[in-house]
């Protein structure tokens, strides 16, 4: 009878982590920044239908990179978790911290269970608070750890470089246009330090805007509104904004 090869636990985990990291690094990045009225999500994503950034609940949104079917499953699981929690208790009892915990447990269990393939995803869960100091941003890497982030964060391929670029330039109290400009600049830099130009069609942009009168603070910035923000740099008039959404 043959003896199976011995693989040390360290090696097994390192292999799984390597596998997941490679999968994640293949995709384009997503950046999340705090600005004075909330949190902005910017992703390089030419698709109008397959989103990387989505609404979870009133004040909570979700961004992900990696394998689409895997993070889509997690996104829907998160929506179900949040809606069920809000239905059994109250809408106020749904928090980003709770959701991030459940995601971390899920990712962690899958990562360390030998029978399952590790998820090749990295998630961000953000919640907008009453003021900038109450905003919460959690980054969830593939292995089930949670990182509490402040100011700016990037995930996906080339995330380290983008993070350090953002870290140097992001400051508290940026306007929406400034934050968007910085986010697009950071995404437009490629690994060799060169610059590309990203147009509105290549970007997926959404905000959690604490000034929105509606209970649900999540809003996608689309079409002319996004182009105007990218070009002119001035924030859209609040009247136009409400006409588009009401």
């Amino acid at each position, binding site marked *: 009878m043959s003896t199976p090869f011995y693989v040390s636990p360290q090696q097994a985990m390192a292999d799984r982590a390597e596998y997941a990291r490679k999968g994640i690094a293949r995709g384009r990045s997503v950046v999340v920044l705090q600005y004075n009225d909330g949190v902005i999500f910017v992703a390089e994503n030419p698709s109008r239908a397959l989103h990387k950034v989505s609404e979870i609940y009133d004040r909570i949104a979700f961004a992900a990179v990696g394998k689409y079917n895997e993070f889509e499953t997690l996104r829907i*699981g998160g929506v179900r978790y949040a809606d*069920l929690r809000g239905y059994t208790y109250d809408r106020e009892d749904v928090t980003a911290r709770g959701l991030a*915990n459940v*995601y971390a447990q899920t990712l962690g269990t899958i990562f360390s269970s030998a029978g399952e393939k590790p998820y090749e995803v990295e998630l961000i869960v953000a919640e907008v608070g009453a003021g900038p100091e109450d905003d919460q941003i959690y980054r969830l890497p593939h292995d089930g750890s949670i990182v509490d982030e402040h100011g700016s964060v990037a995930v996906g391929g080339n995330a380290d470089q983008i993070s350090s670029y953002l870290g140097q330039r992001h400051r508290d109290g940026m306007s929406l246009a400034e934050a968007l400009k910085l986010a697009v600049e950071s995404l437009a830099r490629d690994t060799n330090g060169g610059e590309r130009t990203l147009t509105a069609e290549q970007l997926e942009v959404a905000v959690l805007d604490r000034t929105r009168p509606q209970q649900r603070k999540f809003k996608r910035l689309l079409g002319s509104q996004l182009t105007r923000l990218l070009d002119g740099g001035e924030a859209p008039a609040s009247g136009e904004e409400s006409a588009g959404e009401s």
Partner: protein
Amino acid sequence: MEANPRSTGRLPAAFLTPGSSSFTDFLAAHQPDLLPGNRQLPAQGVVEAPHGTTIVAATFPGGVVLAGDRRATMGNVIAQRDIEKVFPADEYSAVGIAGTAGLAVEMVKLFQLELEHFEKVEGAQLSLEGKANRLSTMIRSNLGMAMQGLAVVPLFAGWDVDRGKGRIFSYDVTGGRSEEYGYAATGSGSLFARGALKKLYREDLTAEQAATLVVQALYDAADDDSATGGPDLARRIYPIVTVISDEGYRRLTDADLAETVRAIHERRLQEPDGPRASLL
């Protein structure tokens, strides 16, 4: 905790199973005891519970108005003077409910969540017909309660984004759904309200006129039905009037309504029966 049936704390399989975009379907699979329709009913017996009464709706060229009075009754007692029976279902629709208040509020909560859940999961809104059908299913699941006297009978109104018009759907206790053209009413005062709507309704109303029309109808309902409450000028409790148009759902403020209600009241001091229609 509902997300933590085992010690791992990971999301249970039901949460991660792809497929349904319906929150009620998810509840049925994961926590069926939370569904209103799955409750065990006692074999017999009657429960006294507050009932809400009259809901009216009318379309106008740019949308639809849905309104309800503020009274809840329990037998001969007025259980509540300022109950709210008209709710936004989502951005482009609203639901007003006559019947057992407690069950109605729960049904609306689940219905709102059903629409929101679908919108978040699918990234698109249900069609207005789709929304109306979901409400049908929910009323049907309440049939057991209805047979014990705890009926819930809603009126659903919304702006049909695809067709570009306001539409009204009425229901019976078995979940039977029918589209109403022009105007509709439900609840104990609905006979009187419908009579008033019939005589006053015109197709070319503005949103403001449509709001006045539904308040007039509720006034007439309150005049002849003891379970329907009229505008309470002393306490400043006015009917709830909502307008749904291509700009979405909007509830008229008390300040807006105060003017309309006062004008109607002043006229009725001269003509207690309200505006008169011509004989021929």
